[in-house]
């Protein structure tokens, strides 16, 4: 579970990226984090994962405060950033071994999970190459595998479907559903409203750093009118705000 309470973040003392955000992401469901460009989605996700520090408010993951117990929080999180251009000088297998060592995954578990996921995402043959030689989609896939190696309780993804081929995209959606069914927390940001509509149990809409809506799609429809699409509701919300 992720509990965000009154979190704010300002860049350079001027740009307020997140403004008093309060949101709870419960386990056992998929929560989509929606918002236009520059709404504060990535900043929020980076604060949850400990990459950025909030100026105000608190963030708890599985009951642990990120500022007080950062290492313990990071251990239960699997994070897929919006930009997979990281650790580019490492080979695929070196990256996976590095991630497994960092999260303290046992040898049996790392080999079982990495082997299975690499096969699922058709990455086995590319593991001997450096990440630098990978395409954007391949980098996205290796980062996904790395984030799942320690079987995280809380899975956070920033625009995870960007650059993925249809098969990998389908596989990832299945993984997200499986994790939600297993009672894990899944929280991801996306621009693709169709995906959010089909995949998410709940959505949270953020605009100019403020939360506009948080609830199920049905609740949203009730608020906007029965026959409105998510796209229509989203546009109306962000235009009105």
């Amino acid at each position, binding site marked *: 579970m992720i509990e965000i309470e009154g979190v704010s973040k300002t860049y350079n003392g001027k740009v307020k990226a997140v403004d008093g955000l309060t949101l709870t992401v419960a386990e056992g469901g998929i929560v989509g984090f929606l918002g236009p460009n520059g709404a504060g989605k990535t900043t929020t996700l980076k604060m949850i994962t400990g990459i950025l520090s909030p100026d105000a408010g608190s963030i708890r993951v599985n009951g642990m405060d990120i500022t007080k117990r950062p290492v313990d929080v990071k251990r239960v999180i699997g994070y897929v950033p919006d930009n997979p251009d990281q650790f580019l000088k490492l080979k695929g297998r070196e990256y996976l071994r590095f991630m497994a060592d960092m999260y303290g995954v046992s040898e049996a578990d790392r080999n079982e999970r990495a*082997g299975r996921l690499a096969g699922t995402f058709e990455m086995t043959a590319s593991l001997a190459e450096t990440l630098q030689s990978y395409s954007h989609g391949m980098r996205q896939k290796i980062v996904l595998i790395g984030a799942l190696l320690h079987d995280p309780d809380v899975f956070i993804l920033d625009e995870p479907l960007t650059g993925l081929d249809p098969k990998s995209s389908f596989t990832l959606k299945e993984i997200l559903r499986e994790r939600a069914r297993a009672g894990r927390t899944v929280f991801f940001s996306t621009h693709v409203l169709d995906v959010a509509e089909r995949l998410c149990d709940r959505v949270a809409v953020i605009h100019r750093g403020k939360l506009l809506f948080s609830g199920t799609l049905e609740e949203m429809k009730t608020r906007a009118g029965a026959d409105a699409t998510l796209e229509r509701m989203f546009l109306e919300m962000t235009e009105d705000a």
Partner: protein
Amino acid sequence: MRNLFRLTWVLIRNARNPIASGKRGGLKRSLFIVLIALAFLPLMVQIGMLADKALAVLGPIGQEGMLLAFAFSLTSLLILTFGIPSVLVVYYFGRDLESLLVLPIRPSVLLSAKFFTALAVEYAAEALFLIPVFAVYGLHQGFSAPLIPAAGVIFLLLPVIPVAMASLLVMIAMRFTGLARNRDRFAKTAGVALMVLVLAMNFGLQKAETSGVDPAQIVAVLVTGGGIWGFLINRLFPACHFAVKAVLSAGSAAGWLNLGLFAAASAFAFAVLLPAGEHLYLRGVRGGGGRKTGAAAQPAPGAFPRLKAGSAFVAYLDRELKILFRDPVFFMNCVVTNFLWPVFTLFVVLTGTGSTLSRGPGLLLGLAGKGVLNAGWLGLGMVMTAMNAVASSAISREGREIGSVKILPFPFRYQLIAKAAAAALLGAIGCLLMLVVGLAVFGVPFSALPAAIVLMPLGMVFAACTGVLIDLFFPKLYWDNAAKAVKQNMNVLIHMAFCAATAAGVFWLVKRSGAGPEQAFLCLTAVFLAVDAALIRMMWTLGAAVFSRLEA
């Protein structure tokens, strides 16, 4: 033609040093050029002095042409050698190909623009060798009015043939072999090869200058055409003979004719390159047969490799070292440097330059039994570790992707220690090599080894911790090219100066105190054990807190 000029201009501007960009690019560029010129001035003076000595011998016997032939051929060979990496960068690794291939321009225009861009890069190297020779020749023969334009035309045209040859060689290699497909590996190999070449040239020049050039020897070398190398380069660049005659007979009909013939030979080389380049280069990069040069070839499917389990600290340190060894910029500036200083020290001894160091054997024998030698060990550990810039760029090297290590469930204090350990490890390689040079060449007594083994690591830890802390407090995370994280990072310079000053200060204090070896050893060990412990504690507490606040 207008397209060609525009495209060449854009490519040259795009290829220029990133230091010259931005609002204050003009001033920075000027300062950069002045600095580079100052750095190369001693080499140009040395070349000029050698040319002067040669002309003093050859002038009276009317054989000035031998010097010119040798200078033109050797410069052509150097341009061919240095041209290969720059041609590769301009033609293949420029990252502009996809944008250029879609432009509505003729292939010959694209090829010509690429060629002229590669050519422009070579003028700087040419100036280094040819300007001193022309200047000395002009001083000996008098700067006649026709000599200056002839020399100017030759200067402009001389690189055409070697760059065309380099282009063809590279295109053939890239089209038909897998050579240089790994951009990083190529950049590292080329960087080390160029460094060795420059060192060898410098070695030759220093040796020639300090050993005193025997006039008879110069005549013998030039009359025989410079031995086997001279023979090879004369055969490789026969058109240089037209250039020699054009200079020797500058102003006469024969001079103009030879200049015309040299221009024609250069034009011919360019004319040959165009159709060949269209076939080899453009088809190659468009993927029209042969080996792929762009995207990595699809690896064959294989079994999943076993992932062994290890400690998080070792994994992090391993990752630091892998990045340092694999990134060409980090490799050249942070890894090769450790091997370079021992080589430089040997170089000074072997060439016999430098008033004190060149005495080499036995130089440090006199320090045996003195406390300052122990201060020297400590200082060596500090300076060698600071010189490799690993610690002082430890945070900057992460760049905007610093979030990728901040997300790891590996405490920041351990991350900082691992970064410092990488710096100390690489510094240890340099120290070890310096120790070997000291034992073998400078007569360092073996009895000094135990003190060196204790004090050098204390110096390394000091430099590693201070470097990481400096870079942690003032990291340079916003860079678009790795050179900015190391070469253009003030933290590196500040840290080197700080460590050099500390080493010098400690040396001075020990010398002034007149402490004996035991006293100095015990005192330095105790003080620097405490200082290093305090620095590690500082990284552990304050450092980790600062790291947690880093944002990019």
